[in-house]
């Protein structure tokens, strides 16, 4: 199979989680371009400035849900305000802690947004990442 190059944007307020996700990605594929953001507002700002309507490589956004300032839900809502030409270069994958006490409606709600491709439960493992990459490749 051809090795398609992706770019990744990691949005997570936890320093440890950003580090772990980035290192996992680098280990799986050394050719990946990865940008990390500790808050969703800054990521949104970068996407707005980039305005890439014809990005060379598809960009996958790994999004945490529980964050201060702007949480994952608000990020998705803001992201959907971008021009469809901008939106189509991105794919959002939610990477979050699910627990028996989390509201299943919240997870369901986030998946109703067409820009959200899937939800992956933390903690991240090599297996989950490989599954994720395969899924991304099949969607592109």
């Amino acid at each position, binding site marked *: 199979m051809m090795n398609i190059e992706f770019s990744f944007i990691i949005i997570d307020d936890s320093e440890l*989680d950003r580090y772990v996700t980035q290192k996992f990605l680098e280990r799986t594929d050394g050719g990946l371009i990865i940008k990390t953001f500790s808050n969703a507002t800054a990521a949104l700002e970068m996407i707005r400035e980039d305005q890439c309507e014809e990005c060379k490589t598809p960009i996958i956004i790994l999004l945490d849900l529980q964050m201060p300032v702007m949480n994952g839900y608000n990020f998705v809502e803001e992201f959907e305000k971008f021009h469809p030409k901008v939106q189509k270069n991105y794919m959002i994958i939610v990477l979050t802690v699910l627990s028996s006490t989390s509201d299943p409606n919240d997870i369901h709600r986030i998946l109703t947004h067409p820009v959200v491709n899937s939800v992956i439960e933390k903690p991240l493992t090599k297996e989950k990442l490989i599954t994720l990459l395969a899924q991304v490749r099949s969607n592109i």
Partner: protein
Amino acid sequence: MTNYKKAYNELNKFAYSVSHDIRGPLSGILGAINLARLIDDVEEMRELLFLMEKSVVKLDTYVLSMHDYYSLQRGELKITEINFNEIIDELIAIHTISSIPNNVTFKTSVKQDEVFLNDVAPLKLIISNLLSNAFKYLDKTKTDKSVELNIEVKKGIATIYITDNGIGILESHLGEIFNLFFRSNSLEVGSGFGLYNVKSALVKLNGNIEVNSVLHQGTTFKVTIPSI
């Protein structure tokens, strides 16, 4: 009946918030362990351990404030003579660790010429929580970062001022900062226990708290506690 219902709702919210707040860092640490299994490089491993340690310390602080919350809800007061200089010395020792590397000017003053009777544990909790907030919410972009703690005991009342020139609190949040699990929209995430515990301790000691804050300029908390 309404009391039971209120207690039940509170317990529900408590279980939800606590389990979520504890699982966050735990899943981070689990992810780090999964990653560590693949790492051979010692330097990279050290870097990972450093970040894991930070997460564990944060989690520990969280559990400690949860314990404070619990112990404040019950128990009798243990009244002793309070020497505010002793309390301050202890707090200086704890907070100088965070003030020196971050270039923070930390000033303290105590005026106490009379006997003050109170329970030392909730008293320390109040001052310590307000101080750590003052340090935590400093404006990282400012070069003249400062925190001040002034205590004066007069006519059986201790008045404590904790002042910082930090990021300040949004005016619309001022009414909510003492609520359990309230977190202001700040870049630093709190446990949601801190100021609630301060308020509970003050209720227990029959004290009072006022807050004065201007966004981007700083915050002053004024605490008054009567001798018992």
